[in-house]
């Protein structure tokens, strides 16, 4: 079967949506894990709380993957019937992937740093864990918005 430039561009978009947020979340979760393990060394009972904090910058990678999944679904990768896309449709998929690829990448870093700082809250004032979860959630907003934008864009692309 024929591979068109459009299909290539759509693949590129899906790939970027997985790659960048994945890198951001991977590194971010790693950072918070390092901070958390210091706390757990002192007090193993803090495992649950710090694990929650560690999970927070992990969502970006998931958003990226989900966007890629939606692209795959749309262009028929998953059904086994790859749709040959005209180049401009492929470009649309590529552009639709950009918000999630870029925003989730950098917000994962920012959220990881906030989470790391909040590990201190878990360490010194475990009763305030609710507040510690809220600060990273403020960063998450922008990841969620970019994910939403990408998703709506992907939904809106007409495919034959």
């Amino acid at each position: 079967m024929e591979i068109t430039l459009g299909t290539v561009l759509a693949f590129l978009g899906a790939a970027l949506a997985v790659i960048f947020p994945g890198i951001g979340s991977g590194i971010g979760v790693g950072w918070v894990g390092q901070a958390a393990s210091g706390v757990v060394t002192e007090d193993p009972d803090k495992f649950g709380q710090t694990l929650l904090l560690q999970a927070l910058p992990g969502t970006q990678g998931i958003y990226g993957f989900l966007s890629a999944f939606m692209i795959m679904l749309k262009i028929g990768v998953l059904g086994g019937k790859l749709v040959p896309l005209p180049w401009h449709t492929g470009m649309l998929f590529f552009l639709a992937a950009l918000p999630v690829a870029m925003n989730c990448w950098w917000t994962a870093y920012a959220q990881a740093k906030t989470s790391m700082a909040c590990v201190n809250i878990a360490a010194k004032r475990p009763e305030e864990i609710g507040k510690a979860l809220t600060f990273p959630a403020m960063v998450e907003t922008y990841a969620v918005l970019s994910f939403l934008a990408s998703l709506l864009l992907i939904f809106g692309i007409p495919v034959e």
Partner: protein
Amino acid sequence: MAVVEMRRVTILGHQSLHEAVLRELQTLGTVQVDDVRQALQPEEREALFPENGTAGSPAEDGQVSRDRRADAHLDTQTAQVQRALDLLDRFFRPKKGVIETFAGIRFPLSEKEYRERAQATQRIAELVARARDLDERLTSLQAREAELKSRLGLLRPWSDLDVPREELRDTRLFRIVTGQVSAGASESLGEELAAASPAAGYEVVGQNREALLVVLYYPKADEERVLSVARSHDWTAVTLPEFAGTVTDEIARVESALDEIVPERQRLIAAVEQLLSERLTLYARYEHLRNEQVKEEAKERLGYTERLFLLRGWTRRRDVARLRQAMERLSPAVVVEDEAPAPGEAYPVDLENPPLVRPFEVVTRVAGLPAAGALDPSPYLAPFFFIFFGLMLGDAGYGILLMVGGLWLVKRARAVGLGRQLMYLLSLCGVSTFLAGMLTGSWFGNLFGIPPLWFDPLKNPVKMLVLSVALGVVQIFTALGIKAYDNIRKGNALDALYDQGFWLVFLSGLILMLVSAAGGGLAALAQPARYLALAGAVALVLTQGRSKRNILARLGAGVLSLYGVSGYLSDVLSYSRLLALGLSGTVIAMVLNFGANLIRGVPVIGWLLMAVILVAGHLFDLLISAVGAYVHASRLQYVEFFTKFFEAGGKPFKPLTEGHRHLLIEPEAAPSERQ
């Protein structure tokens, strides 16, 4: 409902009764004991304690200084029991399941048994002494093991030295020493030594990584020359420890001594294990002592005259009668007064809500308690939190899991206080998650292909987006309404009209304009909506600058205030996260189901693999999406809802009470009242 009404209490009595009074208060658990020094007005303080103007410094030879000595004794006792408990924890950490790792572990104990165990002083003294003895023996055993190991490390390289240690001694004319030289020394060392002293020589006994181990012998007269030769080959003397027989003999002895250490430690640990059956007694004693300490600390906060003590604090209004009864029963020489807080006085804050709202207090408490006299937001945020969480998790299957799981956790984890309420909150939100899942046709994602009762947000995301934003509008209007109510309640009806009423008019006009422009048979509304918005805007321009004196500045501030629309706009758009998080959970579930379906094709174990992927995957999705839903549902309350009306800054009500960290005391008298 809402913030509990507090009464200021003053208790006055003879000094000899302060212990009994505090003990009673601690049992009641309803009175917060303030520091008299802060709770009294300056003139009251002056009148009551005229000598130095500071309360709480009673005569040193009185009752109180005796208490201080008892206090120090308490600290020592607590430390001893703590040490025994630490010993037990070191070898036998309480086994924790997944739940306990998160919620902490508690041992249930009946009230009666708790008292008995905590008071069994004879037995506890024995336990503590035994634990201390075992602890010391374990410590010295450890030291001995370290010593033996280092001796073994020193001797091992010398194991080929077959001369008994006794014979490695200087003779009348010769010196015999052990030591090491650099590994490459062997070739030239012999010749150089012979040149320095014909009678000198050496024997290579062994080798370690970078050096040869040698025995060096030489006439004492040639010591200087021999040693300078040896030093040129990095000579370092090694003094072997004293022992009888050859090195091999000594190594065997040390090894057998080391072998004995392991069983010895096991004996000691077995002895520690025998104490394990008394762990609850130790916990009971520990918590009893901690509670005694809390009581002693409360004494420091009382005021004392020569013969009297004075207690100031707070209690809930509904607890006053029982407090009075208890004090009357205690002694006629104790006086209880209670009064309403002075206007504007910051009394401690406690929340009270009907059972269905109570779990949502968790959300409020995380943000901080409302200020004294302010509204408790819990009942207002409850329906919104309920709906938002449900929409964001939005899966009927997950909803059922949350309902069941939350209730199971309440039973299983034996959590008290906030943790317990959080679990109730989770199971309540499970209900809304279940409903949202039914409406949107999500049962573990698309696992069963059950059609939605309403619509599928994946197929019609715009409809869901509109719904999300509309919910946002409802919540923000509610917030303005609450603020207006609060203003009216405080007698500022005009503020309610200007600051909230006009905004509501203006915003309603704008929204109607948008809706009518969107078509759908509402076009007829366009004209009235425009007038409504205009009227609202004019009213705002005229009133929002009312704090300014200058008429121009007033109008300017009014016009500027319209810029607040952008704030409302961003608030409302923030609710689009309801759609985004809802989709994210659903799509993760879809991906899982898709993957599981693919793997079903694997021969023989395909079905098994599919089951594993489905169970593990959906649990993961539930966990991560539930955390997301909780955090974002909270955020919408804090950032979008609370900012419109919430007054934070309440100090929590902290009654003097008996606390328990490790035990879960089950009262026997009224098991039905368990909270």
